[in-house]
């Protein structure tokens, strides 16, 4: 009974807000900007949809800042590599916002090969009264102009336009899996399976390679880079994770090419859990610094781990996401689910971490109370403004009412991408082609 009330404490705070069905495609990335005012999603069709939070209004205090569509644009198009006879997918792998420095918003979006910097700006005035053009835009015959006038700015309906400002291309032979903006706000890095490149945001025709793990003989390749991120405050520090379950922390001051790490984080394998799939499930699918910069979080197939940057030998905390899948690994290998790349996120105060699972379930772990909860993002099970009910997976034996047995889980409904507002308890959960936004209930 006590446990139930504790569950209520965590999940009672979440109201379902809106279910935004994106028009066609599977969402491939979700990201709040640094103030939480904007939320961007990228999809498999190469489109970016940006949502903006409504200003809180005094008239409707219970409708606290909902998110509405602000801008939609086609970021990447499918391409064809003629040399290799291969298609380059337009799917947006990652979006990262730049910190806001003026009225316009900037974000980086990337597919497998090319990173683009997009400027999103508002236009609510337009100049009227040109001399050389008339109102329809047609050029006037100079002979008919008898007087000169100064164009005047007139208000117009708000228009949000997205323009590509930079295109960073031709720097990656392999598929880009991560981009990360540096805290210096001048540089960013792009990471593919074998290399990490450093760019200046202003310069598109040159990038510096800072990590290269490609062996001379590709037959000797046994490990690839799976994710990378800059430290939130130290502009010289970054980490990258590997398919063997290790994380390397590098300092760019040490040398130009950071093949030698400063720190190496790896947990020794538990011999009692050894199986044919041990290496595959140890592969890290996501790595995230905490907002404080003191901790690292990594996601592998079955667990989420929190590491202290000062302790390389083992993680500080390990959370089981869906350990009931451990006995099903062979089937999950067969249907390729074992290669699914789940992401993980911190809340604003680094006290709660969240990650996705199957059957449209996602999990939250409170680091302080050690409580965890499983929630479901699906239309069938929640009405708008309803309180999310905690879910439970039954492992064996008798299944209680409202529990789901492991064999009934739908492995096609996977929650790979989630995001947490930088300050508030608002989360965005991407369930295939649907975006769910959950918000704290007002007291």
């Amino acid at each position, binding site marked *: 009974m006590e446990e139930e009330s504790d569950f209520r404490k965590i999940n009672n705070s979440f109201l379902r807000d809106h279910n935004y069905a994106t028009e066609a495609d599977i969402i491939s990335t979700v990201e709040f900007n640094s103030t939480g005012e904007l939320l961007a999603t990228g999809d498999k069709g190469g489109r970016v949809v940006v949502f903006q939070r409504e200003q809180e209004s005094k008239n409707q205090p219970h409708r606290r800042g909902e998110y509405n569509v602000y801008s939609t644009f086609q970021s990447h198009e499918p391409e064809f590599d003629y040399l290799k006879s291969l*298609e380059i997918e337009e799917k947006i792998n990652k979006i990262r916002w730049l910190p806001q420095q003026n009225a316009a918003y900037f974000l980086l979006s990337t597919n*497998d090969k090319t990173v683009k910097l997009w400027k999103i700006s508002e236009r609510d005035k337009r100049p009227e009264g040109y001399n050389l053009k008339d109102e329809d835009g047609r050029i006037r015959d100079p002979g008919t102009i008898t007087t000169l006038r100064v164009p005047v700015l007139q208000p117009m309906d708000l228009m949000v336009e997205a323009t590509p400002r930079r295109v960073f291309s031709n720097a990656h032979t392999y*598929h880009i899996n991560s981009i990360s903006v540096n805290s210096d706000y001048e540089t960013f890095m792009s990471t593919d*399976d*074998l290399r990490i490149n450093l760019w200046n945001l202003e310069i598109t025709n040159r990038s510096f390679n800072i990590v290269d793990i490609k062996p001379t003989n590709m037959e000797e390749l*046994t490990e690839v880079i799976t994710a990378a991120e800059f430290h939130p405050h130290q502009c010289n520090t970054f980490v990258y994770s590997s398919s063997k379950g290790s994380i390397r922390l590098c300092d760019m001051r040490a040398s130009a090419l950071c093949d030698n790490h400063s720190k190496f984080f790896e947990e020794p394998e538990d011999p009692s859990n050894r199986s044919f799939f041990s290496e595959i499930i140890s592969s890290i699918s996501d790595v995230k610094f905490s907002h404080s910069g003191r901790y690292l979080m990594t996601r592998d197939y079955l667990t989420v781990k929190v590491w202290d940057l000062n302790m390389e030998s083992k993680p500080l905390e390990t959370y089981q996401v869906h350990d009931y899948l451990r006995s099903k690994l*062979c*089937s999950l290998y*067969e249907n390729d689910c074992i290669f699914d790349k789940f992401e993980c996120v911190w809340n604003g105060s680094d006290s709660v971490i969240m990650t996705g699972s199957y059957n449209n379930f996602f999990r939250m772990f409170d680091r302080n109370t050690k409580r965890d909860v499983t929630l479901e993002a699906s239309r069938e099970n929640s009405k708008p403004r309803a309180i999310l009910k905690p879910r439970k997976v039954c492992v064996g034996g008798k299944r209680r009412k409202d529990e789901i047995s492991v064999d009934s889980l739908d492995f*096609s409904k996977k929650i790979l991408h989630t995001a947490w507002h930088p300050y508030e308890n608002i989360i965005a959960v991407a369930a295939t082609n649907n975006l769910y936004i959950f918000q704290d209930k007002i007291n």
Partner: protein
Amino acid sequence: MLGKGLKRKLEQEEENERKKMDPHQEVMPTFYCLQRQTVLTLSLSKLHSQPAHSDPGLVRRVLITNTLRHIQEELRVEAVLLPQSLATDIKDSFTSALAEIEDLCPAVEITSSLTNSHKFRQTEPVHESMESNMDSALFQFTPSLLDSAQSLFNHCPSLLADFSLDDFLFTEIDNLLFDNTPCSSSPSPSSGSSKVISMTFKSDLNELDHIMEVLVGS
């Protein structure tokens, strides 16, 4: 649960405690061997059936290849340490994995054509001259694979001593790729159909190259 139903009963056995592999143990737990067999077959078929239109992910390929390497290492250790009678079980696992792959992947059917003994004799002079052109690194021998090769092609035991498994796969590839060289003056009867398959084979060549490199012990 999503799944193709391959060896469904194995799921029950997965729930049992898995014993660690003890190289000194003479009797291996059957379900462990069975699962290893399944994983071997799955891994080979996954590597072989990459989507052709878009670039297959490197992460996935590396992880599958590492899994294969691990199994191959286990097989190699077992073959060395265990008596001959049990070594046949091991080579049987490999050959049956290959047999399953042949069923699954039409491109590999070419290798099954090589089991025909008279065909083999026809291509043999081709192969001997081709061998010198091939990278010698490809032809590394391990005892377990030699044995498996023998059980696969037991029509011509005398010739098999010099060959590893690669040879059979690459013999046919050579026939397809070096159509115009004087060595292939005696074309194999299957060349008509193999020309159609040669296009897929060329694109699969790198893949097969890689698999065999892995399997034969790089």
